[in-house]
């Protein structure tokens, strides 16, 4: 009787070698190698059986490229290709008592932020396969040769959700231990196991020697078997033939090294044939497979792992939260994810380890916005995320698309909250911030908070979530309300740690609510909770530890009614003497000095004069700089640096004085590079320069299909649309886009630019030609002056 596959792979197990590179040897066309499952089944079976005879226990079906998009290029249906592949493999495997894994390769498309494919689209391509595979008789599924963790997650989820088959998965690592897309082996190990992978591994790449680093790392983080399926060294192409530089004997010896490193399951990828497998078996059969039991207490993004316990406290950046932030609110409404991204990158540079993402505000579809924000942020600001929402659908959808292991913020000690949060956390392996409160509110004393924490642990257990996943926030209350509030928090942290042995987190700025010079109190409190051993703090990462004596005394509850602290710290705001600052603002902008420009505006601006500062300081500076650029006295980097300085100064004024009064902007402009065009630097320059003249920019990104631009025009009713195209091969798409826009909205001016665009071309399609970012501003100013 054959063992269950998941049991079987705990021993020393051998996979097969290359399939594609073997088919090439038979001289058959291999562009769509899956077609051979139907047209040359005897050939496919011959390869399977060579491996089984050489010692392979497990064979992969010849279905690497089987997804709908690729199947559509053949004359067969996806179902026909997959079923034939599995049938062939099963027929061969049965002769030897071997196992058959349905082989699933990558989609061949790039997911956001590298390309345009969304997580859901990728999921669908895998789900279609899973539907066919689920009752086809395969012993399991292998997902292999993937470089992008998000694509791997989509595949694992599809096969786990649709089939009951065990899923093993491997990514292709470079010698650095990372994939092309920068995915670290650690992140892959944590994520794949959290989603229920039965084994994790590495395949393809530069050969067995080049795989060592990745395998070491996988083993270090594994509690499932680890597998290695490398190429026969580096492939070289000579006159249309592929040559590999490692022979079978050497390969076997190299595999011995990987077996010692802890890889229990071994096989070969491109360039390996049955001799390589036979050599591997000979070289490694005497090395017993070891059971992996390594649990890593960590969260991760695709590239970065943050271990609890390695750093204390872990800093969770709190800035992405629209409460009292009018600019962020506007950005959320406008789908301006670049603005949110810039907040994230800044916090990362300031020392945040994790990023809290909260888009909670009224009047939006929070689920849709949160999912988009996560997709935009995570690839670039590569820190693990804290998904902060109270909405169930938004939570589940956002955690699902989070490319790593995230923290959920938050759960409390009541059934409803538990029901909403724990199933999601369980499914995706998330950590959870647990608020020490219940449906009745925040307990007034430490005892009540500990009781709430105990209740949460019990609730979590019911859902199969262990307490190691919980991070307890004892909840900070203002010392201005009760001077003992600081001590209560410190006490709670101590007891949560010592009595319950759990992690703790603290959103601490609330402590200083209602008091002057809050940063001083927050800084002192940060130091105190850090000394008390708090696991994580949720703060603006610019906050550093401090020890102002009055603040410390206050926080220790020794300053009754905060009298001493207030006396020492109120009324001390000094207005610095300044002279002709408008000139300074103008100068700073021309020089591209961002922080100086903001400082100048901070010192000078008041409720009364801010609009004058905008006009005769900021805009004047921009105009003079623009003129210098046109005359060749300033260059592109200076022009953009000036624009950035202006933007920072303007943002300060908007946030402080204009706020939610929603002072109308000069006009809405949609920007995009046309379909097929993946170069967006030109468009991004136009955006950087234009945004600072007071226009509302809706940036649709790059490679945008005409229909999508039309949909955006319907949604935002813009005053102008700006399009960029760089190549002769994409200019037709610009023509199509302009025609589509003109049919529907003949009055909306379309401005076009890019390397291959000329004035004659623009005139011909009824668009306005702009040669560069500065010209674009002039065109807009002229267009809108007419209105």
């Amino acid at each position: 009787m054959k063992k269950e596959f998941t049991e079987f792979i705990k021993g020393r197990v051998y996979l097969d070698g290359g399939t594609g590179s073997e088919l090439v040897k038979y001289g058959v066309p291999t562009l769509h190698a899956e077609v051979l499952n139907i047209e040359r089944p005897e050939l496919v079976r011959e390869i399977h059986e060579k491996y089984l005879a050489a010692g392979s226990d497990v064979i992969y079906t010849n279905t690497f490229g089987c997804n709908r998009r690729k199947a559509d290029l053949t004359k067969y249906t996806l179902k026909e290709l997959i079923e034939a592949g599995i049938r062939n493999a099963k027929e061969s495997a049965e002769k030897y008592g071997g196992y058959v894994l349905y082989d699933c390769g990558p989609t061949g498309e790039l997911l956001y932020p590298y390309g345009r494919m969304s997580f859901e689209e990728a999921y669908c391509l895998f789900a279609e396969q899973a539907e066919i595979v689920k009752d086809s008789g395969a012993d399991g599924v292998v997902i292999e040769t993937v470089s992008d963790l998000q694509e791997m997650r989509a595949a694992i989820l599809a096969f786990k959700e649709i089939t009951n088959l065990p899923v093993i998965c491997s990514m292709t690592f470079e010698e650095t231990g990372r994939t092309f897309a920068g995915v670290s082996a650690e992140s892959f190990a944590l994520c794949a196991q959290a989603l229920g992978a039965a084994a994790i591994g590495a395949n393809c790449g530069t050969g067995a020697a080049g795989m060592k680093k990745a395998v070491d790392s996988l083993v270090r983080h594994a509690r499932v078997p680890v597998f290695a399926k490398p190429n026969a060294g580096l492939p070289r192409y000579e006159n249309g033939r592929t040559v590999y530089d490692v022979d079978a004997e050497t390969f076997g010896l190299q595999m011995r090294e990987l077996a010692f490193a802890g890889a229990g399951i071994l096989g070969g990828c491109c360039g390996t044939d049955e001799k390589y497998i036979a050599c591997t078996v000979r070289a490694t059969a005497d090395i017993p497979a070891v059971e992996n039991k390594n649990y890593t207490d960590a969260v991760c993004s695709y590239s970065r792992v943050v271990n609890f316990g390695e750093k204390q406290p872990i800093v969770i950046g709190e800035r992405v939260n629209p409460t009292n932030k009018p600019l962020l609110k506007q950005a959320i409404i406008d789908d301006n994810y670049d603005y949110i991204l810039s907040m994230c990158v800044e916090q990362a540079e300031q020392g945040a380890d994790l990023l809290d993402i909260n888009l909670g505000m009224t009047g939006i579809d929070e689920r849709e916005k949160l999912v988009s924000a996560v997709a935009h942020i995570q690839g670039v600001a590569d820190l693990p995320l804290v998904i902060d929402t109270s909405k169930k659908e938004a939570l589940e959808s956002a955690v699902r698309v989070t490319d790593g292991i995230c923290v959920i913020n938050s759960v409390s000690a009541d059934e409803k909250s538990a029901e909403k949060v724990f199933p999601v956390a369980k499914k995706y392996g998330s950590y959870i911030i647990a608020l020490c409160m219940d449906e009745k509110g925040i307990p007034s004393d430490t005892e009540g908070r500990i009781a709430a924490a105990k209740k949460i642990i019990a609730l979590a257990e019911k859902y199969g979530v262990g307490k190691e996943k919980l991070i307890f926030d004892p909840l900070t209350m203002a010392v201005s309300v009760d001077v003992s509030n600081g001590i209560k928090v410190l006490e709670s942290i101590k007891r949560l740690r010592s009595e319950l042995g759990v992690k703790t987190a603290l959103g601490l700025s609330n402590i200083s609510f209602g008091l002057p010079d809050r940063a001083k109190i927050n800084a002192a409190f940060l130091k105190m909770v850090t000394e008390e051993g708090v696991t994580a703090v949720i703060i603006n990462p610019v906050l550093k530890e401090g020890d102002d004596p009055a603040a410390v005394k206050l926080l220790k509850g020794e300053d009754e009614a905060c009298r001493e602290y207030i006396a020492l710290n109120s009324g001390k705001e000094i207005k610095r003497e300044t002279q002709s600052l408008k000139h300074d603002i103008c100068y700073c902008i021309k020089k591209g000095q961002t922080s100086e420009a903001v400082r100048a505006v901070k010192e000078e601006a008041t409720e009364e004069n801010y609009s004058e500062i905008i006009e005769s300081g900021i805009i004047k500076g921009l105009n003079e700089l623009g003129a210098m650029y046109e005359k060749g006295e300033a260059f592109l980097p200076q022009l953009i640096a000036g624009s950035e300085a202006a933007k920072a100064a303007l943002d300060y004024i908007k946030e402080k004085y204009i706020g939610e009064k929603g002072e109308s902007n000069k006009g809405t402009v949609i920007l995009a590079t046309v379909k097929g065009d993946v170069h967006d630097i030109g468009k991004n320059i136009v955006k950087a320069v234009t945004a600072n003249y007071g226009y509302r920019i809706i940036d649709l990104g790059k490679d945008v299909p005409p229909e999508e631009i039309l949909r955006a025009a319907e949604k935002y009713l813009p005053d102008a649309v700006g399009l960029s195209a760089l190549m002769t091969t994409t200019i037709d798409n610009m023509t199509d886009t302009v025609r589509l826009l003109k049919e529907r909205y003949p009055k909306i001016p379309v401005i076009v630019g890019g390397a291959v665009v000329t004035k004659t071309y623009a005139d011909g399609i009824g668009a306005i030609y702009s040669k560069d970012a500065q010209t674009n501003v002039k065109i807009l100013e002229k267009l809108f002056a007419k209105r």
Partner: protein
Amino acid sequence: MTKEAARYLGIKEVDEITAKYIEEAEKEASVIVPAYISACFTAVKEERGIKLEGTDIVLEGKLAENHFYGCKKIISVIATLGLKSEILLKKVFATNAAKAVVLDAVYTAKIEEFLDKTEQELSEKYGNITGRISCGYGDLDISVQKKLFDVTDGARIGVKINECYMLTPNKSVIALIGVK
């Protein structure tokens, strides 16, 4: 590399801000490790143009004819700065667009420098080689780019090509080099 980067930015005399940005951008770009993959084909003169043996690729037009005159072999090279370069550029763009523009120029200088080095390596291996040209230059049809991509297996170094023959990562190049 500073000079080249400035040239790609269209700057004749480097000012203080740009110099600072170039220095910072070069430091940022130092973590980028370029990669290349190559394939070598026997060149067969045909009526239509030069055929790469073992493929259905024919290089038509004057440019190919002149450039590869007397060449026995043609090497197809795909070089890239990798996806990490894209992410880094996006990251820098998020907080400092001016620096990002400079970084983009530094990237261009970097990939050209890498191609020069690759040519050097290839000349050591193959002997007398020509300079590099790319599809889209002169009358060399851009659509050949896709076939070259497939036979050179650009996917192996993480490069993708789309229906408009544009490459991702942006800083990737497909070049052709002749062996005399």
